[in-house]
C-alpha cells in the first residue's frame, strides 16, 4: 500500500500549502496602501459612515479574526467584488475560466507533442545538423520574452500575412457553440458544429504557439538530455547483446524511462502558462482570466488581483498534486521522499 500512504501524505501537504498561500495573500492584501473602507464608502462619506462601514466589513476586528472571515468567505465562494465590472469576482472568473482552460490545455498539448518529438529527434541525430538546429532554436525559445514573441506573431501572421486572426476566440459574427463545457473546440465537436470548430481552432493557433514557445524549449532540452543519458545505461547493452533491434530499444525502453521526468515538467509548465496568461491573453485579446487580471492590474483593482492569484495557485497546486501521484504510480521503483 505504498501508493496509498504517499497519496495521503501528499494530500495533507496540499491542504497545508493552500492554507499557507491564503495566509500570504491575506498579508499582501493588508499591505495595500489604498484604504478599502474609503474605497467602499466613496469620497463623500462622513466619519460616522466610514466607521459604520468599517465595522460592517469587519475591519475593526483583530487581524486573525479578519483572516478567519476571509477564509470562510473564500470557501463560500465570495471572492470579493470588482470595481471595474461591478460584479462579484467569482462571477467574473466563472465566465472567463473556460477560455483560459481551453488555451492552456491546447498549449500544453502542443508543447508535449512537439517537445517530445523534437527532443527524440534531437537525441537520435546527436551532433548532426538537425540536432544543432533544434538546440539553437530551443535556446532561443527559452530566451525570448513571451510578449515580444506574441507581438511578432501578431505582426507577421496577422498584420502582414493575414494567415491568423487578430484576436479573440471566434471571428466576429460567428456564434459560440452550445455551451456544454465552455471549451469551444470540445463543444463544437460534441455538437457536430464543424464551422465553429474550425474557426475556434484557427483562433487558438496564434496564442497557443506563443504560449508554448518556452515550454517546448524546456521539454526538448529535457528529452534530449534524458535520452542521451539513458542510452548509456547498462540495460541498453544487454538488449543489444541479445539481438534486439535498436529501434525497439530506443522507442520502447529508453523512451519510457526518459518520458517520466517530463511528466513532472508538465506541472511546472502549467504554472508558467498560468503566469504567462496575463501577457498572452492581453496581446491576443483572449477573454480569459489572464486578460481580466491584466485589466485589474492596470486599474489597481485589488480584489480581483488577490482572488485571481489565489485561484491560480489553487489550480497550480492541484495540478502538481495530480502530476506527483501519476509520477509515483508510473514509476514502480521510485522512493517516496
Amino acid at each position: 500500500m505504498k501508493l496509498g500512504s504517499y497519496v495521503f501524505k501528499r494530500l495533507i501537504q496540499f491542504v497545508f500549502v493552500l492554507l499557507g498561500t491564503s495566509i500570504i495573500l491575506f498579508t499582501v492584501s493588508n499591505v495595500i496602501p489604498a484604504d478599502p473602507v474609503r474605497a467602499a464608502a466613496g469620497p463623500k462619506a462622513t466619519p460616522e459612515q466610514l466607521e459604520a462601514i468599517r465595522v460592517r466589513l469587519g475591519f475593526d476586528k483583530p487581524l486573525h479574526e479578519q483572516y478567519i472571515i476571509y477564509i470562510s468567505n473564500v470557501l463560500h465562494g465570495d471572492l470579493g467584488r470588482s470595481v471595474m465590472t461591478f460584479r462579484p469576482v467569482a462571477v467574473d472568473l466563472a465566465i472567463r475560466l473556460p477560455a483560459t482552460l481551453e488555451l492552456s490545455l491546447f498549449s500544453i498539448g502542443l508543447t508535449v507533442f512537439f517537445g517530445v518529438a523534437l527532443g527524440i529527434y534531437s537525441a537520435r541525430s546527436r551532433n548532426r545538423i538537425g540536432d544543432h538546429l533544434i538546440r539553437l532554436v530551443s535556446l532561443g525559445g527559452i530566451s525570448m520574452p513571451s510578449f515580444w514573441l506574441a507581438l511578432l506573431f501578431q505582426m507577421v501572421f496577422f498584420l502582414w500575412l493575414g494567415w491568423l486572426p487578430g484576436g479573440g476566440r471566434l471571428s466576429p459574427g460567428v456564434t459560440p457553440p452550445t455551451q456544454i463545457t465552455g471549451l469551444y473546440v470540445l463543444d463544437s465537436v460534441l455538437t457536430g458544429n464543424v464551422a465553429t470548430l474550425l474557426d475556434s481552432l484557427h483562433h487558438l493557433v496564434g496564442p497557443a504557439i506563443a504560449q508554448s514557445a518556452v515550454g517546448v524549449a524546456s521539454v526538448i532540452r529535457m528529452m534530449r538530455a534524458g535520452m542521451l543519458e539513458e542510452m548509456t545505461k547498462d540495460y541498453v547493452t544487454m538488449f543489444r547483446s541479445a539481438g534486439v533491434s535498436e529501434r525497439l530499444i530506443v522507442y520502447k525502453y529508453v523512451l519510457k524511462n526518459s518520458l517520466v521526468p517530463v511528466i513532472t515538467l508538465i506541472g511546472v509548465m502549467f504554472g508558467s502558462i498560468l503566469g504567462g496568461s496575463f501577457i498572452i491573453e492581453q496581446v491576443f485579446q483572449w477573454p480569459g482570466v489572464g486578460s481580466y487580471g491584466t485589466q485589474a492590474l492596470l486599474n489597481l483593482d485589488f480584489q480581483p488581483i488577490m482572488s485571481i492569484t489565489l485561484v491560480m495557485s489553487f489550480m497550480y497546486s492541484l495540478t502538481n498534486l495530480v502530476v506527483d501521484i501519476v509520477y509515483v504510480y508510473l514509476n514502480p521503483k521510485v522512493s517516496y521522499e
Partner: protein
Amino acid sequence: MTMSQTEETGRFRELRYSFHLLLSNPVSTVGAVGVAFLFTVMILAPILATHDPIAINLTGRFLPPSGEHFFGTDHLGRDIYSRVVWGARISLSVGFITLIEATVIGTIIGLIAGYKGGWVDSVIMRITDVFLAFPSIILALAVAAALGRGLTSVMVALGITWWPLYARLIRGQTLSVREEQYIEGARLSGAGGLRIMLKHILPNCIAALIVQISMDVGFTILAAASMGFLGIGAQNPSPEWGLQCASGAKYLVYQWWISTFPGLAIFLSVISFNLLGDGLRDILDPRLRRG
C-alpha cells in the same frame, strides 16, 4: 612552500584552466562576448546614446529607422536607439538586484535550515513549499501591485518570489556537506556553528550557486521585463525595455520598430546570459573536466 601558498597557486591554476575551458567552447565564448558587450553598453550609455532618451519631439514622431535615428522614433518622437541603450541599465540591473536579494536571503535561510536540521528545517521547508506553490510570476504581480507601481516594488516582489529556490539549493548543499568528516572535526575542536557555516560549508556551495545563478539571470531579466510590459514596474517616461514594448504594441501595423528593437534587446541579452550559463555549467561539471 607553506600550505596556504600551495593552495593559492593550486586555485590560481584551477581558475586559469577554467577560463581556458570557457573560451575553448565556441558557444560559451559567444555568450561571454555578448555579456561583455552588454556591460559595456550599461557603463557607456551616456556616450553611446545619440539623443536624450526622454526628450519628446512631437514634430519627429513615428520616424522609421535612419541614419539620424538608428531605431526610429516612437509616438512621442523619442529616439528609440537611445532609449534602448539607456534602458540596458534599468532592465539588467533589476535582474541582478533581484538575484542578489534572492541569493542573500536564500543562502542565509538555507544555511540555517540545513545546518540546524530538526524542526527548524521542517518549518522552513514548509514555508518554501508555500512560496513555490505560486505559479511563476503571479505572486510577484500581486505583491508589486500591492506595493504600488515602480521599480522598487518590482525588485522587492521578485526577490520575495525567488528566494525559496536558493534556500532549497543551499539547504541541500549544506545537508550533504554537513555529514562530511571535517565538519565533525571542526566542531570537536570547538568551532562555533556560525564559524563552521561560513568557513567550511559556504565555500562548497559556491559552485552550485554559480550554476544556479547563471541559469536564473536570464529568467529574472525576462520576469522584470514582463512586469514592465504589464505596467507594474517602471513608469513613463522610463526607457525600461518591457515598458517600451508595451507602448509600441498599439502601433504594430505601421511603426513596427517601436516594439521590435526593445524586445530584440531583451532577447539578445537573455541569450547571451544563457549561453554563458551553459558554458559555465559545462565547466563546473566535474565529469567533463578532465575527460
